[in-house]
């Protein structure tokens, strides 16, 4: 590939880095959130609940420049995501450039808009892989959770993906409403010929946090689902790799979020804001740079936003003296802010966190078999109108 193209590799990434900078590895994973527009209305979407405030999407030229700068800085995996990336009619142009630069290119899609003509164009552009999302294995629940009639379309798209020879990751967000049907979800992935299946338990950010009491499964549900998943792994491990992501609320130590702040992952939002994770923009008092104003390498190595929570120097107690601090790096900064009100404290998933009770209270509520509708607010479906309503509520 063009990774050996000397023209690319000798291009100066940015100003020379200091000695300390050289200890920081490159932004290996580049995620481009091309748009927040999406035909689906999923109740667990991780796009920010105030996405309706974003209007000014980057132009094709902006995205092409981001690809070139990131590749020169050492990015190698490139994800095209959203919202629904198929809604950008320049997707094929961007994929072709990413391919030319030597990226491994991944398209993360709901399937809406991926017809035969565009599949052919993406194949010609050099797209390497497609991750297709389902919301459930049944039309009824898939269409209910996404608030669209998309189940049959997704099945057709899966056949299109396989007919073009792409490896396929099927992704299904798992939660209280579909976890009991995990066997049928795995059967669907087998039937459709997916090489990989991500059973990603919902993480409680953004829209999923709004809907948490509807979505958080009980401990019993999770244990059963893991058992069923392991049975399928034993039977079909050669055909399909199944990932099962446990909801971190059931852990007593936090996840090493994004494999470390500013460690491998760089996401660019539709308006060009560069973030160390999908949701970091929620953190107050942190200035995240925009790719319109700053080159990717400078953003990665020199910006305040990317350096603020790198490593362990920012930690307070109980993290600072914790023997496990290098292992989980204190967990997730967004979760610390959402649940404990301070982005620089321990992730409350950790049972050493003074705010751990917030997590156990949500978990306790999830153990009751019945959630009376009167106890909780109705499910909120992701969409521009709901987003504007939530923005207005926060303003008050």
């Amino acid at each position, binding site marked *: 590939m063009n*990774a050996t193209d000397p023209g690319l590799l000798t291009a100066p990434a940015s100003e020379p880095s200091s000695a300390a900078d050289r200890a920081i590895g490159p932004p*290996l994973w580049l995620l481009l959130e091309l748009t927040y527009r999406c035909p689906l209305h999923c109740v667990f979407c991780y796009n920010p609940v105030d996405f309706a405030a974003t209007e000014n999407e980057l132009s094709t030229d902006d995205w092409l420049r981001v690809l070139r700068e990131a590749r020169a*800085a050492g990015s*190698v*995996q490139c994800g095209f995501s959203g919202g629904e990336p198929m809604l950008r009619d320049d997707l094929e142009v961007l994929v072709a450039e990413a391919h030319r630069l030597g990226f*491994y290119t*991944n398209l993360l899609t709901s399937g809406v808009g991926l017809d035969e003509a565009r599949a052919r164009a993406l194949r010609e552009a050099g797209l*390497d*892989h497609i991750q297709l999302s389902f919301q459930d294995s049944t039309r009824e629940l898939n269409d209910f959770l996404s608030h669209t009639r998309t189940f049959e379309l997704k099945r057709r798209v899966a056949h299109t993906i396989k007919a073009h020879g792409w490896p396929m990751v099927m992704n299904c967000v798992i939660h209280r409403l579909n976890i009991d049907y995990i066997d049928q979800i795995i059967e669907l992935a087998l039937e459709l010929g997916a090489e990989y299946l991500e059973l990603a338990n919902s993480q409680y950010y953004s829209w999923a946090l709004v809907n948490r009491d509807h979505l958080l499964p009980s401990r019993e549900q999770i244990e059963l689902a893991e058992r069923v998943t392991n049975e399928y792994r034993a039977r079909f491990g*050669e055909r399909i790799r199944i990932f099962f992501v446990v909801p971190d609320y059931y852990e007593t130590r936090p996840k090493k979020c994004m494999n470390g702040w500013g460690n491998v992952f760089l996401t660019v939002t539709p308006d060009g804001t560069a973030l160390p994770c999908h949701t970091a923009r929620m953190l107050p008092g942190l200035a995240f740079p925009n790719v319109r104003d700053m080159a990717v390498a400078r953003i990665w190595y020199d910006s305040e936003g990317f350096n603020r929570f790198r490593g362990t120097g920012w930690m307070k107690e109980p993290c600072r003296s914790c023997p496990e601090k290098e292992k989980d790096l204190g967990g997730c900064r967004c979760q610390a802010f959402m649940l404990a009100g301070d982005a620089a404290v321990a992730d409350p998933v950790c049972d050493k966190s003074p705010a751990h009770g917030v997590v156990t209270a949500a978990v306790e509520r999830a153990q009751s078999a019945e959630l009376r509708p009167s106890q909780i607010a109705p499910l909120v479906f992701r969409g521009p109108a709901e987003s504007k309503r939530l923005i207005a509520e926060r303003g008050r």
Partner: protein
Amino acid sequence: MSAAVEVTSSTRPRVSPRFRLQWEEAQQSWVLLYPEGMVKLNGSAGEILKRCDGRRSVAELVAELEAAFSTQGLEDDVIGFLDVALHQHWIEV
């Protein structure tokens, strides 16, 4: 591909189409790329895998490596690595 298949000196391994082998200047290493993931290879793994083209036999591959690095007796190590690679589906035989 099953675990019963073994790598011998006459095997002609090739990198699996499920993976893309690529030199990464920024990491100064060979990597295997696959959907949403990457395996960073150490120096010897990279030298072995870049020669797995389906044409060279393991014996030829070993001879090339021994010549390139002015050494001898690499066959056991190479076969040991290729067994791991086969198990990981990085290569096909």
